[in-house]
C-alpha cells in the first residue's frame, strides 16, 4: 500500500484527464511567493500542506492567500509544521475556485463482491465515513465490460447533476476508472469533487497504489510510506517487519501465525513490540539478516516461533546460529525458540548443539519469553 501525497495523486489524475485546478508545488516560502507573483498559480489561491493524514483544513494545514506576500506568509507558517506526526516539507498551491456544490466520488475494491466498486455521494467535502449510508450510492463494476454508460447515468442521478455538468461527470468517470485500473490502485478518491460553473473540478486527490503491482510501476518504488527506518531496511531485504511500542521481539513466519503469537503473548502479560515475518524462505542468509535486524531494534527478549512448511526448521536454526555469532554483545538478547514442522528434529538438534532449547507448545514458550523480558508489562 503506497499512499500518494495529494500533488502526486493529481499528477496521476492529470495523466488520465481528470479536471484539476491550476496549481504548482512549492518547497519554500520564496517559491510560494514567486509562483503566485509570476501567475503560475492564479490568485486568490489556497496553500495546502502535503501530508497524508486527513483533516488538514481544521488542523491549520490549509490557508488562503490573496497576494504573493500572503502566499509567502501562509507557506512560511505551514512549512515545518508537525501535522499528526508528519513534518510538512511540501505545499500545493492552487487557484481558489467559486464552488457551487461539493460531491464525493471514488473507485475501490469490494472484497466481498470481488468487484471494483464506484462510491458516490452528493454530500462531499466531509469524511465519507461520516455520511449517512442512505446518501451513498455504491455501484459494483464488472471488470470485463468495465464502466458502462447506464452505471454512469445512475451515479449522475444520485449526485443530482444534469446538463453540461453531467457531461463533464461522464468524461471524468471514464478518466477516473482508467486511472484506477491503469495505476493498479486500491483507491482513487476525489473529495471534494467541486461543481464549478458548468463543469467539475477535483479539488483533492487521494490515490493509494498496490505494492504487489510494483513490477508494473517502478515509478512508485521510491515513495516512502509511513515506515520507520528499520521497517524501510526490512522492506529492501523483503522481510515483513512492523515496529510498535513494546519490548518483546517476535520472529515468526506467516501473518496469521505472527498475529496468533501476538495474541498469546498479550494474554500472558507480554508487550510485544517488533514483529518480523520471515514468510516462506529456505535461505539461511535471509534468516540471519532478519535476526541482525531484530537485534538493531534492541528488544528485551525475542520469541522465535516458526512452523516449518516452505521454510524448513533446520534452515531457520542454521540462520539463527550464524546470526548469534554476528550480533554485537551490546545488542544481545535472551531468546526463546519454538520450531515445529518440516525438518523439526534436525532444527531442534542444531539449536541444542548451540545451547538453545526449543519449547514445543505455544503456551509454555510464550510464558517463557514474557518471563525473560522481565515479566508482565
Amino acid at each position, binding site marked *: *500500500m503506497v499512499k500518494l501525497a495529494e500533488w502526486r495523486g493529481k499528477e496521476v489524475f492529470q495523466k488520465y484527464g481528470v479536471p484539476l485546478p491550476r496549481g504548482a508545488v512549492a518547497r519554500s516560502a520564496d517559491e510560494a511567493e514567486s509562483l503566485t507573483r509570476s501567475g503560475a498559480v492564479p490568485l486568490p489561491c489556497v496553500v495546502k500542506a502535503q501530508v497524508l493524514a486527513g483533516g488538514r483544513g481544521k488542523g491549520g494545514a490549509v490557508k488562503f492567500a490573496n497576494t504573493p506576500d500572503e502566499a509567502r506568509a501562509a507557506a512560511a507558517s505551514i512549512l515545518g509544521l508537525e501535522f499528526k506526526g508528519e513534518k510538512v516539507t511540501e505545499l500545493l498551491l492552487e487557484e481558489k475556485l467559486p464552488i457551487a456544490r461539493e460531491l464525493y466520488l471514488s473507485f475501490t*475494491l469490494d*472484497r*466481498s463482491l*470481488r*468487484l*471494483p466498486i464506484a462510491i458516490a455521494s452528493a454530500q462531499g467535502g466531509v469524511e465519507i*465515513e461520516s455520511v449517512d449510508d442512505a446518501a451513498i450510492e455504491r455501484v459494483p463494476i*464488472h*471488470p*470485463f465490460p468495465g464502466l458502462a454508460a447506464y452505471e454512469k447515468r445512475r451515479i449522475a442521478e444520485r449526485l443530482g447533476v444534469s446538463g453540461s455538468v453531467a457531461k463533464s461527470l461522464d468524461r471524468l468517470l471514464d478518466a477516473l476508472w482508467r486511472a484506477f*485500473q491503469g495505476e*493498479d490502485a*486500491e483507491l482513487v478518491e476525489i473529495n471534494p469533487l467541486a461543481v464549478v460553473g458548468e463543469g467539475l473540478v477535483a479539488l483533492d486527490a487521494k490515490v493509494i497504489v*498496490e*505494492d*504487489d*503491482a510494483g*513490477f*508494473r510501476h517502478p515509478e512508485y518504488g521510491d515513495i516512502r510510506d509511513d515506515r520507520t527506518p528499520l521497517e524501510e531496511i526490512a522492506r529492501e531485504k523483503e522481510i*515483513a517487519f*512492523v515496529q*510498535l511500542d513494546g519490548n518483546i521481539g517476535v520472529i*515468526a*513466519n*506467516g*501473518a*496469521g*501465525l*505472527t*498475529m*496468533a503469537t*501476538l*495474541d*498469546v503473548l*498479550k*494474554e500472558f502479560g507480554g508487550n510485544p513490540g517488533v*514483529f518480523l*515475518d520471515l*514468510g*516462506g524462505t529456505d535461505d539461511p542468509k535471509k534468516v540471519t539478516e532478519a535476526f541482525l535486524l531484530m537485534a538493531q531494534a534492541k528488544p528485551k527478549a525475542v520469541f522465535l516461533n*516458526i*512452523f*516449518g*512448511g*516452505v521454510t524448513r526448521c533446520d534452515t531457520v536454526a542454521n540462520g539463527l546460529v550464524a546470526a548469534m555469532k554476528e550480533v554485537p554483545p551490546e545488542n544481545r538478547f535472551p531468546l526463546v525458540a519454538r520450531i*515445529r*514442522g*518440516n525438518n*523439526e528434529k534436525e532444527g531442534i538438534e542444531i539449536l541444542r548443539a548451540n545451547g538453545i532449547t526449543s519449547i514445543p*507448545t*505455544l*503456551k509454555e514458550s510464550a510464558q517463557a519469553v514474557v518471563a525473560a523480558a522481565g515479566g508482565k508489562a
Partner: protein
Amino acid sequence: MTVLVDGSTRVMVQGITGHQGTVHTRQMKLFGTEVVAGVTPGKAGATVEGVPVFDSVRAAVEKTNANAACIFVPAPYAKDALLESVDAGIPLAVIVTEHIPFHDMLVMYHYARSKGARIIGPNCPGIAAPGLAKVGIIPNVVFQKGRVGVISRSGTLTYEIVNGIKERGLGQSACIGLGGDPVVGTSFVDALPLFQADPETDVIVLVGEIGGTAEEDAAEYIRHHVTKPVVAYIAGRSAPPGKRMGHAGAIISRGKGTAETKLAALSQAGAKVARFPYEIPDLVAEIIAHQGRR
C-alpha cells in the same frame, strides 16, 4: 470425492522447473498424490521428480488428462498461467504464488467463474485430503486421516492448527487454505458448503484473521446453511488498528473487520469460539465426544 480432491485427482504443476515447483512436486507425490504433468514454456521433454514437463497446459492435458492445476509461476506471469489452465478445461486451480496484483486477480477470478472453473488462492497453502490427494504446499507431517474439516485464511497458522488436531489424536477429512489476499478465488462462504455436504466431515474448524468481512459473511452463511458444528478462531485480536501485519487482509480499518465483530458474529451463528490456537483441539474433541454420546 470428499472436498474438491479425491483418488481421481491428477495434478499438473505450472512452474514445475522452479525451486518451489520442484520441491512441492516431490512433497505432493510423497503425500500420495498423482502428479501427472508439469508445465514450463520452453522446457518440454524434461522430467522433474519423474514427472514429464510440457510447453503448454493444452499439451499436458492432451497427454495426461490432468484435472487439477497447482500454480507456482511468479506473480507477473501468474495471470497468464491461470487463464491458460482454465482455457484447457481444468476445473480446479490452486495458486500458491504470492504478490499477485488484485487487479489481475479480479480478471482471473471472473474469467475462471465464467468458464465454470474454481480457483483456490492466490498466496495460499492449497488443499489436502489425507489418504487421497494434496494440491499445494501444506506440510505432509501435520496430517492424519480423520473427520475434522479445516478452512483457513492463514498459511503457517493453518499448519499449526492442523498439527494441533493431529497431536490431540484426531484427524482431518480435508483442509483448505484460502489465502489472505484482498481477492480470493474461494472464500469461507464458497468453502463451507463443500464441508457441510461432505459425508467424511463431522466438525468444521474455521480459522480467520482480522481485516475484511469474510468471517462476518461466513457467520451469516453458517447461521442459515450449516448444521455441522463449527469451531472458529480469529487471529489478530490484539493487533493494533491501521498497521498491516503481513497479509493485505490483515489490516483493520474504520472499526470494520475487528476480531470482536467477527467473533461476535460467529458466536451468534452458533460457532464455538477459541481464544487461542491451542484451544481449538480441545473444543473439537469436546464436540466429537458429545456427538459420540448422542
